[in-house]
């Protein structure tokens, strides 16, 4: 079994069962830096100074030409052939609170959320242990690569993992999920992963901003905040941005939280003016970041932010929060998927 040595002995771990370097390290409780786990964000870069790895995705966008020139690898796309000595900067924040595990799960229930988002409930034999806002990898029968999906529910003893997944046109994984997988079918789940989880120790008001299937992790964060004793009575503003009124969702789930309408508020914006007019949408029209700025006003500068959604939405929000309002990046939580 390959033994991985980080920074000449700062950390040492074994890599089992064909794991990549990142997941093996996290399973062993080592703080290897990462965000997406799928080769896109580039946060898990390192240098293999001894030993050989298989590159699972040579064209991964997380590595630039300069990185390749310098011989860097993505730990999330590197499978060791033998013992490996690795150099990278360990990150105390990345030490997993809950160590990820592989387990077999069974599809227990499916229900429609919108015209193109469905909730899939997978059942495991052991308790579902994760932090609100985290994600897991699902290996589906007949689909060659795993996919990362965020949980929408809260950790639970019953072993239920709820995912809200948006159908991707022509997508292999969502095609299998939406059209072929029947209740009772089994899949492999590996998790939890992700650093954009609820921070109950933050003293600030909470703002969750979701678009598309980013609804799932933001619902989990909002549900987690409502359930956490340290956050009782805390102001929570939940924003959802959809293209058309038919895409807007999440209000019903927010409405079931304690304090809804008082300290817990839901706001939605529709970005397509023609669709808004055709459906006589009574709410805000425009990109969701404009609604966030307008609604929060001065409160914006004193909040803790959780974001999940399509990259252009997340980027516009980063511009607004980090560049215009100079909010420190440590107060803005999201995992970068592309």
């Amino acid at each position, binding site marked *: 079994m390959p033994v991985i040595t980080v920074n000449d002995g700062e950390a040492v771990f074994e890599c089992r069962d064909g794991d990549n370097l990142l997941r093996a390290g996290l399973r062993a409780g080592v703080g290897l830096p990462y*965000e997406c786990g799928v080769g896109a964000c580039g946060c898990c870069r390192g240098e293999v100074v001894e030993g050989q790895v298989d590159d699972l995705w040579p064209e991964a966008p997380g590595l630039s030409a300069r990185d390749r020139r310098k011989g860097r690898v993505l730990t999330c796309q590197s499978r060791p052939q033998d013992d490996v000595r690795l150099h990278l900067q360990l990150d105390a924040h990345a030490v997993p609170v809950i160590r990820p595990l592989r387990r077999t799960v069974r599809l227990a229930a499916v229900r429609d959320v919108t015209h193109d988002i469905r909730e899939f409930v997978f059942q495991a034999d052991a308790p579902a242990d994760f932090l609100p806002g985290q994600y897991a990898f699902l290996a589906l029968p007949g689909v060659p690569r795993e996919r990362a999906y965020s949980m929408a529910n809260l950790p639970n003893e019953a072993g239920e993992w709820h995912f809200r997944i948006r159908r991707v046109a022509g997508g292999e994984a969502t095609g299998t999920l939406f059209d072929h997988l029947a209740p009772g079918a089994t899949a492999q789940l590996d998790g939890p992963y992700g650093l954009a989880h609820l921070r109950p120790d933050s003293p600030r008001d909470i703002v969750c901003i979701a678009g598309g299937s980013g609804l799932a992790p933001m619902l989990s964060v909002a549900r987690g905040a409502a359930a956490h004793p340290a956050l009782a009575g805390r102001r929570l503003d939940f924003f959802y941005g959809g293209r058309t009124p038919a895409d807007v969702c999440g209000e019903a789930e927010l409405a079931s939280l304690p304090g809804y309408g008082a300290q817990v508020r839901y706001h939605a914006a529709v970005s397509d003016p023609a669709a808004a007019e055709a459906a006589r949408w009574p709410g805000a029209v425009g990109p969701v970041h404009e609604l966030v700025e307008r609604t929060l006003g001065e409160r914006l500068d004193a909040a803790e932010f959780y974001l999940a959604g399509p990259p252009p939405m997340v980027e516009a929000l980063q511009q607004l929060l980090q560049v215009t309002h100079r909010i420190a*990046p440590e107060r803005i939580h999201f995992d970068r998927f592309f």
Partner: protein
Amino acid sequence: MKKLCPTADVPTGGCRRIELPDRPPLAVFNLDGRFYVTDDTCTHGDASLCDGEIDCDDGVVECPYHQGAFEIASGRPAGAPCSIPLRVYRVEVKDAAVFAAVDETEAVPCP
């Protein structure tokens, strides 16, 4: 224009972190005798770019935290995971010292 430091304080191919009251720290870079001033804190995380690696050939600074990168002259992101440009400031060199327009509210746009 605000005086930041003597040019002799910033070696060629190096940088120096400058702390001014009531504002985020700045980084002064010297690329082959040309001086540039940017914010010092990476736009992706809480890390000082002055602790990072400067690649003079590419005119790029790499964040020590995740090796995200920025073009020093423009602030443009030059490597994942950085996606938000770094704020850059207009610079003048006068009397062997580096000055920067740190109070200009608008960032210099990426060329």
